[in-house]
């Protein structure tokens, strides 16, 4: 399979079984399923007087795709930097593959592949030479592995070209190739879809699912919520340096469905009052992800869409449109108070 193509050449999404979801506990709790690839307990980090992490408890099971979500400045990149030994936490503990992980054991990061923030390369070197240079640090990398990962990300044809001439998407793909160089057990990717075209995003998703099906753990930090919704088995949502929710995505979405109704603009106020009486004040908000005026979102199970419609009708308001579902965006917005 290749990130350059929308259609995998082998082992694609169609043939990759979706990894079984691992039962995850609430924030700070323990997972009861697969052993953990990575975990933090009470992780703290501040930059000067600005706290970035204030007791983060994260549990990333092995062999799954873990979606790590949070608003800007929530502490996602700080968490990844701590994991990768780039910065030292002020407090708390980390575990890597079930064993305590400290700065003295950096060599264990040879089992971890990563792409942090924007991919970094020497612009005057070719893609192939960049991978050779990167492969010279850390875990031993056979020369044939460089060719394998170039093939995997669809850059074999341009591997001899200088990276300075690469597009952003090509650099991103080369960054993913670099992360895969050591055939890591844990893959940590920060916004991996940045710069990829739609076909590249689909191919990347299939590649990551394929890797998870091979038993590898994929930890993806992203702002693109629909992407995570399509990709992740387990999701962790972080806000202001603290985990606010963690668990299997399917279960989370099942608990946090929504119904959206559209009413005539002049009836918006009355409709909102009716729906607040029906579902409670905190469960109703206007707009959210919808761009048109007149949309009201109610946090109730999708199966209750008829009840929502009846509540409106009882107040003499008739919806002009109604939709229901479960999406990560609604959950994210409600948990992080971003509405």
């Amino acid at each position, binding site marked *: 399979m290749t990130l350059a193509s929308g259609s995998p050449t082998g082992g694609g999404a169609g043939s990759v079984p979706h990894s079984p979801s691992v039962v995850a506990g609430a924030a700070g709790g323990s997972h009861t399923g697969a052993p953990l690839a990575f975990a933090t307990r009470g992780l703290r980090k501040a930059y000067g007087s600005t706290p970035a992490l204030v007791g983060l408890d994260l549990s990333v099971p092995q062999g799954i795709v873990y979606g790590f979500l949070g608003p800007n400045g929530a502490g996602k990149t700080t968490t990844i930097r701590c994991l990768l030994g780039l910065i030292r936490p002020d407090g708390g503990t980390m575990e890597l593959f079930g064993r305590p992980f400290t700065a003295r054991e*950096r060599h264990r990061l*040879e*089992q971890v592949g990563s792409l*942090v923030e924007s991919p970094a390369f020497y612009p*005057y070197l070719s893609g192939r*030479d960049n991978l050779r*240079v990167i492969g010279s*640090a850390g875990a*031993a990398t056979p020369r044939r592995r460089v060719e394998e990962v170039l093939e995997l990300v669809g850059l074999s044809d341009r591997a001899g070209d200088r990276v300075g001439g690469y597009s952003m998407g090509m650099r991103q793909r080369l960054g993913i190739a670099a992360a895969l160089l050591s055939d890591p057990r844990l893959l940590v990717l920060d916004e991996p879809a940045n710069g990829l075209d739609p076909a590249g995003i689909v191919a990347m998703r299939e590649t990551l699912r394929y890797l998870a099906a091979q038993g590898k753990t994929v930890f993806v930090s992203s702002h693109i919520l629909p992407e995570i919704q399509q990709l992740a088995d387990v999701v962790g949502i972080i806000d202001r340096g603290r985990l606010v929710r963690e668990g299997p995505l399917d279960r989370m979405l099942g608990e946090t469905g929504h119904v959206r109704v559209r009413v005539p603009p002049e009836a918006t106020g009355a409709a909102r009052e009716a729906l607040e009486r029906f579902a409670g004040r905190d469960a109703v908000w206007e707009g959210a992800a919808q761009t048109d005026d007149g949309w009201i979102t109610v946090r109730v199970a999708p199966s209750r869409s008829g009840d929502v419609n009846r509540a409106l009708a009882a107040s003499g308001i008739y919806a002009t449109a109604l939709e229901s579902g479960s999406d990560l965006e609604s959950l994210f917005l409600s948990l992080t108070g971003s509405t």
Partner: protein
Amino acid sequence: MRLLGGELLKLVKRPGTWITLGIFLGILVLLFVAVGASYNAIVKAPAGQGGGRETTAAIRSLLSFPGAYASVAGFIGSIGGLFAIVFGASAAGSDWGWGMIKVAVSRGESRTRYILAKLVAVLVLLVPAVLVGAIVGLGAVVVAASISGIGVAGAGDPGAVASLPSLAVRTWLALCEQAAIGFAIATLARSQIAGLGVGIGIYFVESFAAGFWPEWVRYLPFSVVNSLLREPGSIGGGVDVGGGAAQLARSTIDQTTALVLVLAYLVASAVISAIALERAEITG
């Protein structure tokens, strides 16, 4: 060795490496040829103009073999030292600029091993730089000696030829020390530009201070290089060309002490670089 190979690949393929070497060689050639070309003009100048006998004697000493071997080594060690600072600082600083430090560290590589491999790669590449500089410099001396009519007699002097390996090693050590200082400053500052600016700044401040406190400054990193490269009767290797014997004695130290100090500054730069990277929070 794997790590060293990667670092060498980076440096060899970096355009800045060749640009730095090219500019250095150009200046080296220009200096000697200009000195040779000016010799005849000074000799033919009317009495009281052009600097007189002292200047022509200095030029003859500079361009005459076997002393010219030391002259070339001296220029490589002093002027080349500036380029060594540039080379060392850019080798260390560019990794911060391009964000490549985080890539190596996050792969589980030992920070100390990484930074030392990078420094060793710089020092290894200074070996061909010294050899190429010596060949080009001696070629320029031959041209300059021919222009000036001084000639190249004495180039095959057995004693001088036998001492060339030692001279080459000392020149290399001199460049290593200066490159390592630029390297350490850039690592501390996490910036190529800062490494270049501060390194070159210290170089000139030290040269300037030598005029006021020569007995102290002679122990400082860029001045010990002059003592290390000084050959009896040579002009090269010093910023104090034309100084008297007493002044020379005050501004230089014996070669063994100079060698020990050069090695000490080299090791100290390596240790500082390693400690700086070990303690660094890599957020860029």
